[in-house]
Structure formats: structure tokens, C-alpha cells
């Protein structure tokens, strides 16, 4: 009898001690899971994302005095809403496959017990990984996958901060209409696109949006990617001579188009390159001198000195040893701070409270790294204030030229080229 009592007391003491320890632990660290391509074809992107997460956690845990003046979460000492709990990033490798992405998500939820997930870069992996999170009821934020159907699945735990193809199309539409109002000719528009899923879908979204918005796409030139010669396409353009040309291409074709347009001495008044190969550093570095004034899009522009974006960019350069934030890493870092902000406001790591806090997210542009109009989710989990900046190539660097409120440089038209 005595023995049993002693055992019970011991067990009780152990339980209490364990409970305290667990409680104290919860206050000290908040685990956030991230599942990114650290190996495989997109490993380079994944590793830049990893550095963005590490930098974000470091800002919240250890602070940055300069940034703290304009960015409340940068005061250091962890999350104020959770009595200074520190953030611990648990970053797993999705290996570039939907299967591995789902498995790692499961591991982070069941073994690492993460409070929320940020995942996965590739749309196809986001599909499978978010289904796991939905099943377990863990908040899941996607910062950069643009496939339209991701927010059409009726998920309750899925949130997406990035703009999607339709947002890009809207941005181009408003941009071109503004040019038209300013007296520029935008009557004939040609879309030149590579003919896999990427080029086909983006081109049809753009032409639908343009038709609805009152601009007409008069010419579409689909082509097979990575060929050794693009002269016939450029000659077709030269003959029809459209006012505006929009390219949707990968790097190799982007370089060839730039070279061939110069060789054949033809350029439209407005040349838009929808991100893709035209934003590849290999392109801007080597073709920049012959594509001055090329228009593209990016959610990131360094912004005015002293802004959140500019300061984050400087910190990121320090972290990576020279590479600044770009279109992808800025969206990743933005995703991280949206999650951190929600957990902070929830004051808890309980999934339902974090989910409710995410739903109530309302971030203003001056608090953002990415160039969105804000962050605010609709019922489907899509950020309705996601938008993109229109950028222009200036001395081999993209600078923001539209919308005016966030432009760092004046728009220069017509397209100069070489």
C-alpha cells in the first residue's frame, strides 16, 4: 500500500515536472515548419528561401535596432504576444517531388509538432503537402505557388499570399490602359509564348483579361521552347509590327529573342517580358545592354532607402554574401512574416487560434517586403491585396516604374533596346 502510494506520488511529481517543463518550453520556442526544394532542379531557389527563413527568425529572436523603428516585430526578444517566445524554423527538403513534400509535411506535423507550415514553392508539391496539413488541421501558408486551383479546393487551413496569373494580367491591363490614356499607341498587341503549361496558361489568362478590359490581342505566336533559331517568329512580328509585344519565355529563348531582334533591327514601342527567363540574372547581365527599357514584373523592388523592403534587402545581402532579395525570396520572406505576425496576434500556438489570426490578417503596404497592396485573405485563403509591380530594365537592373505610388524610377518609353 505504502509502496503504491509512493509510486503514485512520484508519478504525479514527474507529471507535474514534465508539465511545467513542457509549458516553459512552449513559451520559449515556437516551431514553424517549412518544406522547400533543398535538392533537385530547384535547389538553388530552395536554398535562397532557407536563408530568408533563417534571416526572418533571426530578426524576431535577436532584433535589429534600425529596423525596429519602423517594423515592430524587429525589436528582438522573440514574439511579444507569446511572452517573448523565440521562433525556431524547422526546414525540410521536398526534393522537388510531391511525394517527398507530403511526407516531410507529415513528419513536421506529427513529430516536430510545428505550429504552422510555410510551403512549398512548386505548385504541384503545394497541392499534396497542403492536403496533409488540411487533414491534420494545421495552418498552412503558401507564399509563391501560382496555380489557380490551389485556392479552389474548399480548404479551411490554406492561405496564399502571392499574386497569381490573373493579378499579373490585371496589372498589365491597368498599366497599358494608363499608357493609352497618356497618348501612347496600344492598339495592336502580340503575345509570343512557349507552348507548355506555363506559356499557354499565362497567355490565355492575359488575353482573356485584356479582352474583358477592352484591349485586343491581335496576334498570338506560340513556339516550342529551347530551339536554336527564333528568326521566323521575329520576322512575323516585324511584318505585322504590333505596338506592344508580350513575351512569355524561358531563359534560352529570352536570350535568343533579344539577340535576334537586334540582328533583324526591329523593336516594338512597348516590349513586355512576363518575368520568366527575362528575370534570370544570366539574361539581365548578358543581354541588359541590348534590352534597355524592357518591361517586366516583380513583386519585389528595393524601394526607397529607409523603407522596410530596402532594409530587409540590405540584411539579406549580408546573409547571402551579396545577393539581394528577388521576386521569389521576397515572397518567401513575406510569407514568413505573415505567419509570425499571426502567431504573435493569436498569442498561442493552438492551431485554431493561429487560423483565426491568419483570417484576421490585415497588413499595410508600409509593413511589407513584397510590393503588395497589403495582405488580407478572402474565404478561400487567397490574399486579395496581392499585386505586382511593373518594372523596367535600366542599365541591366530592373527598377520599379509602376504603379506610381511605389515607383522608384520614371517610366521611359518607347522601348530603347540597343
Amino acid at each position, binding site marked *: 500500500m505504502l509502496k503504491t502510494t509512493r509510486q503514485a506520488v512520484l508519478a504525479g511529481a514527474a507529471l507535474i515536472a514534465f508539465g511545467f517543463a513542457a509549458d516553459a518550453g512552449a513559451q520559449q520556442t515556437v516551431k514553424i515548419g517549412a518544406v522547400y526544394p533543398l535538392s533537385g532542379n530547384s535547389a*538553388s531557389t530552395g536554398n535562397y528561401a532557407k536563408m530568408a527563413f533563417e534571416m526572418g527568425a533571426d530578426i524576431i529572436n535577436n532584433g535589429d535596432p534600425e529596423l525596429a523603428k519602423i517594423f515592430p516585430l524587429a525589436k528582438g526578444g522573440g514574439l511579444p504576444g507569446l511572452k517573448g517566445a523565440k521562433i525556431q524554423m524547422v526546414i525540410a527538403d521536398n526534393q522537388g517531388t510531391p511525394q517527398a513534400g507530403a511526407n516531410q509535411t507529415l513528419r513536421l506535423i506529427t513529430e516536430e509538432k510545428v505550429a504552422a507550415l510555410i510551403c512549398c514553392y512548386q505548385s504541384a508539391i503545394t497541392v499534396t503537402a497542403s492536403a496533409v496539413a488540411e487533414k491534420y488541421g494545421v495552418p498552412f501558408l503558401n507564399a509563391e505557388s501560382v496555380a489557380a486551383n490551389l485556392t479552389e479546393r474548399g480548404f479551411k487551413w490554406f492561405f496564399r499570399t502571392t499574386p497569381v496569373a490573373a493579378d499579373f494580367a490585371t496589372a498589365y491591363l491597368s498599366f497599358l490602359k494608363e499608357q493609352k490614356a497618356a497618348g501612347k499607341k496600344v492598339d495592336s498587341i502580340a503575345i509570343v509564348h512557349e*507552348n507548355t503549361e506555363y506559356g499557354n496558361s499565362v497567355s490565355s489568362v492575359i488575353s482573356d483579361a485584356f479582352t474583358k478590359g477592352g484591349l485586343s490581342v491581335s496576334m498570338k*505566336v*506560340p*513556339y*516550342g521552347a*529551347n*530551339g*536554336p*533559331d*527564333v*528568326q*521566323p*517568329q521575329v*520576322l*512575323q512580328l*516585324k*511584318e505585322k509590327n504590333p505596338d506592344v509585344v508580350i513575351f512569355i519565355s524561358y*531563359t*534560352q529563348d529570352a*536570350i*535568343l529573342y533579344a*539577340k535576334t531582334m*537586334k*540582328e*533583324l*533591327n526591329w523593336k516594338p514601342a512597348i516590349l513586355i517580358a512576363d518575368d520568366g527567363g527575362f528575370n*534570370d*540574372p*544570366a*539574361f539581365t547581365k*548578358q*543581354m541588359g545592354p*541590348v534590352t534597355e527599357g524592357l518591361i517586366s514584373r516583380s513583386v519585389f523592388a528595393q524601394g526607397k532607402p529607409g523603407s522596410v523592403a530596402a532594409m530587409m534587402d540590405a540584411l539579406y545581402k549580408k546573409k547571402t554574401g551579396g545577393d539581394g532579395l528577388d521576386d521569389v525570396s521576397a515572397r518567401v520572406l513575406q510569407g514568413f512574416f505573415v505567419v509570425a505576425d499571426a502567431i504573435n496576434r493569436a498569442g498561442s500556438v493552438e492551431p485554431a487560434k493561429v487560423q483565426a489570426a491568419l483570417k484576421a490578417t490585415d497588413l499595410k503596404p508600409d509593413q511589407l517586403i513584397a510590393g503588395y497592396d497589403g495582405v488580407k485573405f478572402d474565404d478561400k485563403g487567397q490574399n486579395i491585396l496581392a499585386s505586382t509591380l511593373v518594372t523596367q530594365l535600366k542599365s541591366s537592373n530592373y527598377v520599379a516604374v509602376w504603379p506610381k505610388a511605389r515607383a522608384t524610377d520614371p517610366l521611359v518609353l518607347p522601348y530603347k533596346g540597343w
Partner: protein
Amino acid sequence: MTLVQVVIGGLLLGAVYALFSSGLTLIWGMMNVVNFAHGDFVMLGMYTGVVVWTALGGGPWASVPMAAILIATLGVISYFFLVRHIMKGPMLAQILGTFGLALFLRYGALYVFGANFKSLPDNLVGHSFVLGGIRFEGSRVLAAAVGLGVTLALHLILTRTAIGSRMLAVSEDATAAQLMGIRPQRMQALAWAMAGAATGIAGALMALFLPISPTAGESLAIVAFVTVSFGGFGSVTGALVAGLLIGVVESLSAYLIGPIYKEVIVYALFVLVLWFRPQGLMGKT
């Protein structure tokens, strides 16, 4: 006028196709070996152009001979260490052997040079010029001219010289040739060296106008295989005619019908030709 421009563009493209296919047809015709690493030989020739430019500041006048020597050496090494041995095995061993070599070279290049695209400045050869209202791109004209020259030289060596006769003798019957005092291995190594040199030259010239990446050889190899079987296995002049034909048909169909249809038309033509002439345009039955 635009149509003439399209045809000229096609001819220039076709001459380049012929240039980088001549090495493949030589190996194929001489030894009945399909070199799946051919496209990656071209890719290494392209990188030779990049390295000569970035490290030494040299243009094509330096990189072309350098690439010829380097890729010829690579050809001889491949012959002695790989091809000579796998030729004794079944056909499948040859295919997988050179395919393995292709992967080794491709991922070796990925390791050494990285995955990023590189391209050379476009003023190394001089800018494009206008002649009779038609624009000519300097680097493509140079590649096409050298392509014609190299193809003709290979053809003359094979048909008009003693060494060429010996090489052809080995390709017809190695044992009989050996009985006549010809060393088959030496001739075959020579064939790999010549093929390598032509391929290296092709790569170094193509680097002047095409973006360069470790996977550049992949799509080029397919074009080379088509050109060679179109022209006739082992026929250097066949590769030239087929290359020019493919180039012009591609350009015209891309311009007149649409770029996504050009492959359909080229390959339909290819199948038709093989239907009536399975040995290719200029191959022997």
C-alpha cells in the same frame, strides 16, 4: 523580301546543322557506332569558346582551333578507353556505353560550370550587315562558311586521300584491311579524332550565337541524329544536303504556318523520305 530573309536564315541554320552533324555521320559510317555523347561533345566545344573568352579574352580565332584540338583529344580518349571495348559487346552495350559517357560529360559540365546560361558578347565577329536588303548575322555567316569548309574537307579527305581510302577500307571490312597492312584501331582512332575536331569547331562557332548551358547538347543531338539519317549514314555530303534542307524547311514552315508546326513538318518530311529511301538521301544501299 521577308521570304528571302527567311530562306537565307534557314540556309545559315542548315549549314550549322550540317557542321555539327558531320562528326556524327563520320563515326556512324566508319564504325557503325552510334555516339550518344555527340551533343555533349558539341556542348563542350561551346564551353571551350566561353573559357577562351572569359579566361584569355580570345575570340573565335583562338577558340575554334583550341576546341578542335581539345574535342579531338576527347574523341581519341573516348575511343581508347570506352568505345574500343564496348564495340566487342552487343549493340545495346554500345548504346548504353556512349549514353553513359553523355551523362558523365553533361553532369561533369554542370559541376564545373554551373547550371546558369552563359552567352558570349555579340561583337566578337563583327555586327550583322545588310546585303541587297537582306540582313546577315556575322557570327552565323562565319559558322555557316566554316561549316561548309569543314564538311567539304572531310569529304575530300575520305574520298581523295590515301588515309581516307584506308579509313573506308577499315569500315568496309576490318579484317581484310588488317590483312592488307592497315591497322584498324589506328584508323578508327583517327576517325574519332577527325569527328571530334569537326564537332569541337561546330561547338566553338555555335557558342557565338547560342546561349550555352550544360544541357545545350540534348536538343542538338536529336537534330544531329535526324540530319545524319536523313542524309544517309556515313555520307558527309548527305549530312550537308540534309542539314540545309532541314534548315530551310524549318524556317519556312515556322514563318508561313507557325513556329509550333515546324517540327511536325520537318519530321513528316523525314518519315516520307525514309519511306522511299530508307538509306537516306545519299546513303548507299
